[in-house]
């Protein structure tokens, strides 16, 4: 196995929090994903027509941001993260008011950082002058802003950091959290991802890469993972966070473990600034590495939550890798058909959905999959299935050639 890495105990997932286009909380998001209801709509911004999956309105009151967070003027990416992270901590039964914050860490994945704040304030300084800029411009725009806002809000005083590997960021954050726990740098890690980059810069920029769906006549059918008619992804905004602890620590405090993160693999394509390496060898190596760390074999995989963004080339490479690596043909689903592509949050939201798939023994469907595209030789479920899911793999890849795989197992 690559690197010959020994199996490790992994991490217990004791809390899950979601704030996505599919729902303002974990349960609603999971139900929307389970029934396979797409969330994309047609929008227009700065004269650009595009498809998007919008997060719900931020709630007021106890489930919302809270007064102190409002006063820190978070960028939208941080605001979405605060709501998801609060749900994850509550789910874990952890009270930020009583814990030893020095033993808690946060790893926040982001693709675009605080780009909405950056773009708005750049327009202000150019059009109205420097004296009209908000003092919250820089702390809102920096890529570390999500991690910093979560640390301040919840009194997290151990290691805190942003990680960014484009659209693999959320999965990378969970992988880094596993390392922090294995090294004993802290005892609890809030790990996940958040992105809010529905801005003209990113919409037009992704479109110039020909990465976005143009199915404007059928917005909800826009993101079609592995489908013969797929034509690109639909941008989404949202956040997902997990609470991770060493399994022995979780057991010692009597916490409910929803699932285990058994292994993580990370590789790079070293090939192109956006295109995947055609042979998919980097992604395949990441999956093999994650399985090896979990002490599992490819034949143990009951479910793959694929990256599956619905781009013609990306899906073809991933489908070939998964068919070759997993000849026993486990179901391969992409929940992006429902949620859209959450970019820097995608890996974390999909890890959370995979945790729930394991916990509920449910294979979620791939919305909008009707007929396999050329070279797609996979079992892609179109409706939810109830079946034993003891071990699942979640794959993520990012522009620049970042590959990440997580193995998630029943406790």
């Amino acid at each position, binding site marked *: 196995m690559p690197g010959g890495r020994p199996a490790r105990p992994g991490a217990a997932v004791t809390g899950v929090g979601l704030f996505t286009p599919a729902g303002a909380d974990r349960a609603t998001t999971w139900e929307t994903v389970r029934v396979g209801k797409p969330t994309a709509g047609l929008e227009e911004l700065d004269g650009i027509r595009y498809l998007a999956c919008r997060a719900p309105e931020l709630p007021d009151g106890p489930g919302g941001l809270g*007064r102190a967070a*409002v*006063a820190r003027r978070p960028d939208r990416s941080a605001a979405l993260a605060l709501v998801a992270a609060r749900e994850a901590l509550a789910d874990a039964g952890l009270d930020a008011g009583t814990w030893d914050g020095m033993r808690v860490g946060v790893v926040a994945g982001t693709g675009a950082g605080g780009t909405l704040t950056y773009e708005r304030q750049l327009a202000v300084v150019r059009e109205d002058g420097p004296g009209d800029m908000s003092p919250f411009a820089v702390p809102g725009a920096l890529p570390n802003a999500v991690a910093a806002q979560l640390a301040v809000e919840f009194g997290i005083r151990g290691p805190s950091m942003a990680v960014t590997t484009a659209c693999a960021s959320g999965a990378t954050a969970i992988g880094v959290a596993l390392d922090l726990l294995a090294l004993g740098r802290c005892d609890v890690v809030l790990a996940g991802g958040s992105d809010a980059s529905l801005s003209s810069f990113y919409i037009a920029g992704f479109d110039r890469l020909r990465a976005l769906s143009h199915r404007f006549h059928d917005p909800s059918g826009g993101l079609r993972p592995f489908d013969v008619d797929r034509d690109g992804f639909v941008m989404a905004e949202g956040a997902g966070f997990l609470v991770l602890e060493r399994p022995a620590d979780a057991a010692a405090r009597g916490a409910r473990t929803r699932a285990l993160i058994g292994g993580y693999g990370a590789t790079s394509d070293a090939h192109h600034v956006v295109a995947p390496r055609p042979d998919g060898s980097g992604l395949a190596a990441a999956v093999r590495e994650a399985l090896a760390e979990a002490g599992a074999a490819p034949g143990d995989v009951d479910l793959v939550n694929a990256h599956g963004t619905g781009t013609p080339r990306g899906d073809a490479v991933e489908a070939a890798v998964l068919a070759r690596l997993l000849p026993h043909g486990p179901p391969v689903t992409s929940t992006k058909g429902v949620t859209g592509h959450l970019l820097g949050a995608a890996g974390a939201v999909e890890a959370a959905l995979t945790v729930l798939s394991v916990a509920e023994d449910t294979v979620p469907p791939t919305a909008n999959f009707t007929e396999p595209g050329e070279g797609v030789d996979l079992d892609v479920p179109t409706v939810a299935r109830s079946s034993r899911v003891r071990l699942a793999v979640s794959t993520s890849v990012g522009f620049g050639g970042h590959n990440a795989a997580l193995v998630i197992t029943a406790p």
Partner: protein
Amino acid sequence: MTFDELKNLLVSLGLDPAEITPESTREEAGLDSLLLTELALVLRKERGIPVPEEELYAAPTVAAIEGLVARYAAVA
């Protein structure tokens, strides 16, 4: 701008209404230097009241801020 209008503005910035009285110091009200700068921006750009940032920084209490707002609203 009445005291209540100023209070509502401060609450919209995220401050706790229970901590905002005329006698509250800036610290008690929760107005750090970033929020004071933001307050000056909101007053100038959204309310048309050009209170200089330096004078806001020097105001010790919410009542003093209210006085500055009244003075610059009159000349605006």
